[in-house]
Structures are given as C-alpha cells and as structure tokens.
C-alpha cells in the first residue's frame, strides 16, 4: 500500500505531461540551432527565465545594465534616424537627390562616394567606365561644395562613408570654412572609420598599413574631439563581419573587441574615456534571424556598459550608452522573385526596431539586381514608416522584454559573445588577433558553414532552395550610369582644378603633410585637413599618407 502512495505523490506536472506529449508526437525531431549555434527549444518557461533577476538583468531604459535601451524615452522621445544611402554620378547629381530628400523632410543624410574614392584614387587615375556608378565622384573642395550647393551644412547630420585617412570629412570641413561655418556646427558620423573591420571583412575600404591606420584613427578621434565636437569620428562596424559570414554572436563579439582595442589605443594616447567614449558609435547587420538579432543587440548593450565601467573605469553615464545604427542584411536578399525581398526587409527592420536602435537603413529590394532604383529606395523608407506609424511597433519601449524566450536567448547570446571576447583577449586583443589572421579564418569558416546549410536545404531560402518557381520573372531595371559626357566633364573639372592651383602653396601643403606624418608627436589628421583646405585633392592625400605610413592590403586566402 505504501508504494501506491508514492506513485500518487509523483503525479506528473503539466510540464511533464507536455514534454511527454511533445515527444510522443515528434519522436524523431532533430535539434534546431540558430545562426550563432545556440540550440533553440520548442518552448520556454519560467524555468528558463524568471523575474527575480529583473533588476540585475534588465532594469529600466536609460539605466544600468542598459538592456532595455540607452535613453529613458527611447523611440517615444526620439524616432530613430531613417538614413538612406545616397551617392551617384557627379556632384550635381548628388545635390539634386540630396535636395529632394531634404525637401521631403529628411535631416539625416549620407554621402556614398564612387568606388574609385574608396580605393584612394582621384577619378583621373582609374578606368572611366567605372566612375560614378556606385557613388558620387568627389575629389576636391570644389566638388564637395557642389555636392552641398544651396544646402545649409549646419542643418544636417551627415554620415559619410569615409575610410581612413578621412579625406571626405576634411573636404566637408574645408567647405564649412569657405562658407564661414564654424566647425562646431558640423555634425554627423565618419562611417567606415573602423579599419579593423575593413582589414578582416571589407577589404575595399582598407588603404593604409595596419600600424599606420592605428595612428591615423587615434589622431582623427583626438582632432574631432578638439575641433569638431559634434562629429562622431568613429563607427565600429559589426555589419561587415556579419555580411562576410560571421555569425551574429561572432559579429557582436568582434565589434566589442574592436571597441575595446580602439578605446585602449585612445587611453594610451592620454585621452579621457569619460570624454572620447561619448562619440563612439556602432553599426550592426540585422539579418533574417529575427529573435537572434534582437537578443544580440540587447546583449551587446548590456556587455558594453560593463566593459566601459569595469575595464576603463568610466564614470560618465553618457558613455555607458551603446549607440548603434542598424542595416538590414543585403546578403539575405535573393535575386529570385526579388519582390519577396520587401517582405524580408520588413522582418529585418522590425527586428531592428525591437532592438532599440538609434538609426536604421532599410535595403532596397532590388539591390541584388543592381544599384538601387529610386522607386525601390522609396519602398524601403515607407517600410520603416509603416512599421512605426501603422503597425505601432515602436509605441512600447523594448516590447519583447520579459518573454521567457527572448530573455533566455539574450542571456545565452551574452554568454556566447563573452566567451569569444575572452578568446580574443587571450590572443592579446583584437589588433593582435587580426594580425595573426585569427578573425579572418573564423569568418571564412562561418561563411562556408552557413552556405552549406543552404546547400543542404537545412536553411530555407524561399525561391532559392525551396518553393521555387519555374517562370522566373525578374523586374531588373537596367543599371543607372552617368553619361560619358558627364564623366568627361567631371574629369575636365578635376584637370582644371589641379592646373589652377598655386604650385608653391601646393608644395608647401604636401611637405607639411609629410612632416606631420613623420613626427609621431604631431596630429597627422590636422595636417590632412589643412592640406585639403589648401587645395590638395583626396587622391593626393591618400598617396602621400600611404607613402609615409605604409600601404597595406589584407591577404585573403581560401
């Protein structure tokens, strides 16, 4: 009889019953993992996450540990910036598109230069066929002036894709000086300032040797802190690494490790983390892995405030804020049935909004077919407005907090990210890890693994490896190209610009630049700005700096 009583006591809990029933119905089910390799269970309960840790793990927006957001009002107080990338053709083409955007009420704008600029050349150094197809041709202070013709620089926040040695910002500052605008009013961000991300994942932006880059970046941060205080001199980019194949957890860890490296370099230069960290910003990819992306960014916010306080002893609450821009993931878009990409971008943008980001770029659905058309770019912007104002996705701050799944996943992502950061610490920090090729191999391996999951059908891509249609109807628009005449005229303008310069002024500017580069105690970026103000072109500055500080090209292997 005693035995019977014991059986009664062991009556199955509802949880046990559910588990049995689940296993009974799905006996053969294989485990599912997210892109970062974390196993995803079919159900999450208070056993995975409970409210007793609320204060320690979540807290309130704008307060430690920052999980719920970096400002107390978040998107209710300030809508995220909707920053679309623009850049095409001549400075006049750019100006036309810019003014259209400004007329439509935009204040956060961007400037994407031609690929020749990225590679460090003036336009007269490359095959004219490639000019102006991907960005605006801008080499001189005159060009930059024309880009911003009839536009008040003070009223804008300009994000420029401007890799080291930051010639585009120098051109903008030269225009400001020409127009009598105090540099204190110049605001925006040096995008593509994170040379480590370029070295490991986006080689086209990499221009100098690693050591040379290290110096120029710190000089740039110091210069902006002193002379252009409303400019964000640094955007640390996880997006490149994730687009190149890193998993979301890896991309976050690599970005944080890079942030640590740059902060340490600034501290070594005698700068105050309570000050310079205020201007550190971050940039992430928002992929299709919806919950994983939300957990990634929430975990990132929590880790960064801890790093800043524990490692750098920063007391200023403003620097505990992990400010980031998000971009929907281009590599997740498909050429097959391209209109499906609008649905993909919507899901990614929703994830982005739920992460509590500060600024968002939504990709155009046709980016896999060619450089985006204006119509597609309009849809991309509308997607953000629909999410915010029709679907009301941003009415509540951090709306997924408290979900057993989201909180448990945030904890697991945090753990995973920290373990990767620890490995990089063990390797001597991010700079050393990159020199050793460790990060590059990591990314290559993850890229291959993800591709294999698509090839095997384990990861569905609609219209590519599942639900494919036979009648492939593409709405590919022909590529927009600046006319040969326009390119020719722009080349002619550059030629005249170079010819009309005062030779001795030019020589003086170049030799001052050389001097500053050779003398470690001088700020080389200050010399670059002066050279550009004195008429030296973008390409000439890059060549000179490369000569002095070394040219580097990352080695890629397979």
């Amino acid at each position: 009889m005693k035995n019977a009583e014991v059986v009664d006591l062991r009556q199955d809990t509802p949880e046990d019953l559910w588990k049995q029933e689940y296993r009974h119905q799905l006996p053969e089910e294989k485990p599912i993992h997210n892109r970062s390799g974390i196993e995803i269970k079919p159900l999450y309960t208070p056993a995975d996450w409970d409210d007793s840790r609320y204060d320690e793990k979540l807290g309130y927006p704008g307060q430690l540990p920052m999980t719920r957001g970096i400002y107390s009002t978040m998107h209710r107080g300030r809508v995220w910036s909707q920053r679309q990338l623009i850049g095409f053709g001549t400075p006049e083409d750019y100006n036309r598109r810019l003014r259209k955007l400004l007329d439509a009420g935009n204040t956060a704008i961007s400037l994407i230069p031609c690929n020749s600029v990225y590679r460090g050349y003036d336009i007269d150094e490359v095959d004219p066929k490639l000019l102006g197809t991907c960005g605006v041709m801008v080499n001189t202070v005159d060009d930059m002036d024309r880009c911003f013709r009839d536009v008040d620089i003070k009223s804008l926040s300009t994000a420029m894709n401007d890799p080291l040695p930051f010639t585009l910002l120098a051109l903008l500052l030269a225009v400001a000086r020409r127009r009598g605008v105090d540099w204190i009013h110049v605001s925006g961000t040096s995008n593509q300032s994170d040379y480590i991300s370029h070295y490991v994942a986006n080689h086209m932006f990499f221009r100098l040797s690693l050591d040379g880059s290290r110096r120029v970046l710190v000089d740039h941060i110091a210069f902006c802190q002193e002379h252009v205080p409303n400019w964000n001199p640094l955007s640390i980019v996880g997006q490149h690494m994730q687009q190149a194949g890193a998993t979301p957890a890896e991309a976050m860890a690599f970005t944080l490790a890079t942030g640590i490296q740059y902060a340490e370099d600034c501290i070594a230069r005698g700068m105050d983390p309570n000050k310079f960290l205020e201007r550190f910003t971050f940039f992430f990819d928002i992929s299709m892995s919806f919950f994983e992306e939300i957990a990634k960014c929430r975990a990132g916010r929590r880790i960064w405030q801890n790093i800043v306080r524990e490692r750098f002893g920063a007391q200023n609450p403003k620097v505990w804020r992990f400010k980031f821009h998000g971009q929907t993931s281009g590599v997740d878009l498909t050429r097959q049935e391209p209109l499906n990409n609008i649905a993909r971008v919507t899901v990614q943008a929703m994830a982005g909004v739920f992460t509590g980001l500060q600024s968002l770029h939504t990709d155009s659905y046709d980016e896999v077919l060619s450089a985006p058309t204006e119509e597609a770019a309009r849809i991309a912007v509308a997607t953000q407005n629909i999410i915010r104002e029709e679907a009301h996705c941003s009415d509540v701050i951090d709306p997924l907090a408290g979900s057993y799944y989201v909180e448990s996943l945030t904890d697991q992502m945090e753990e995973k990210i920290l373990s990767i950061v620890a490995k990089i610490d063990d390797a001597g920090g991010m700079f050393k890890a990159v020199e050793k090729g460790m990060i590059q191999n990591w990314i290559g391996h993850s890229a291959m693994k993800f591709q294999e999951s698509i090839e095997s059908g384990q990861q569905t891509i609609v219209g590519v490896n599942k639900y494919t249609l036979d009648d492939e109807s593409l709405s590919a628009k022909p590529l927009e190209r600046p006319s040969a005449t326009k390119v020719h005229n722009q080349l002619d303008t550059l030629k005249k610009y170079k010819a009309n310069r005062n030779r001795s002024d030019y020589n003086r500017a170049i030799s001052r630049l050389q001097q500053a580069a050779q003398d470690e105690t001088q700020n080389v970026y200050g010399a670059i700005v002066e050279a550009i103000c004195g008429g030296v072109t973008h390409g000439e500055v890059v060549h000179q700096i490369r000569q002095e500080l070394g040219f580097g090209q990352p080695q890629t292997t397979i």
Partner: protein
Amino acid sequence: MSLPERYRPKVIVTKIGLDGHDRGSRIVATMLRDSGMEVVYTPPWQSISDVVRLAEEEDADIIGISSLATDHLLIPDLLEALRKSDLEHIGVIVGGIIPEEDENELLELGVSRVFHPGSALKEISSYVRTLAIEVRTKSLRKWESQNHEKC
C-alpha cells in the same frame, strides 16, 4: 582523343576593377578546390593584364570573375585582351550582381555563363568541370593538329 575522368580542371577565381566584396569569390573558390579542382585564387583589384598573365602562366582552363559593384563593365576588355594574347580558348564565367541587359551583352561577347546570387554550388562546380574538359579537349586537339602539320 578524350580526357581521363580524373582530369583536374585548373580554374582562376578573381576580381577585377575597384570593388572588394569577396565573400562570393572565396566561397566559390573554396568549393571548387574542395570538389577536386586546382584553384588559383587572387585577392580583388587585379588589373586585366594581371589576369591575362596569370592565365597564361598557369595554363588555366577557366577564369571566374566575381563582380558585385559594376566591375563587370571591364569584362569586355578582358575578353579582348585574352584574344590578343591568343588565349581565347580559355572559358570565362562570371558570378555576382549582373543586370540582365549586361548579362546578355557579356554572353554575346563570349562569356560562357553568368551565375547569379543564389546559384547552387553543385551546379557551379558541375558546369565548371564540364566547361573545363571542353576547353582542354579543344586546345589539345588544336595542339595535335598543329603538330601534325609540322610533321
């Protein structure tokens, strides 16, 4: 004559022009290597003359050009340079973001095939293998007939 089944195609995977996005070229190169081909992989930004010289030195069967941001506009020049160096037998394939009208032009000019994002790696490798064997067979025949004439 015919080539043995175990013939190892020799493929150059490269990028020309200004863009440096190399996720695609690295994945394709890795996969071709792992499927048993001899792959010569280069970093981006090769000049056309670099590619032609490499193809000649390596006696390549196939040149694979990856393009994301309009660098495919240089491919007609590459085809012309190969012709001038008497290397037009080499198969040229292209992968990446290529607008449709440009694709048609490239195919007319002599590119064997354009692969778009989302192409299955298996399909790429089987195509490359078949094309490489075709290229090699043709050039061997040509060589044989030239030598025959000499005798």
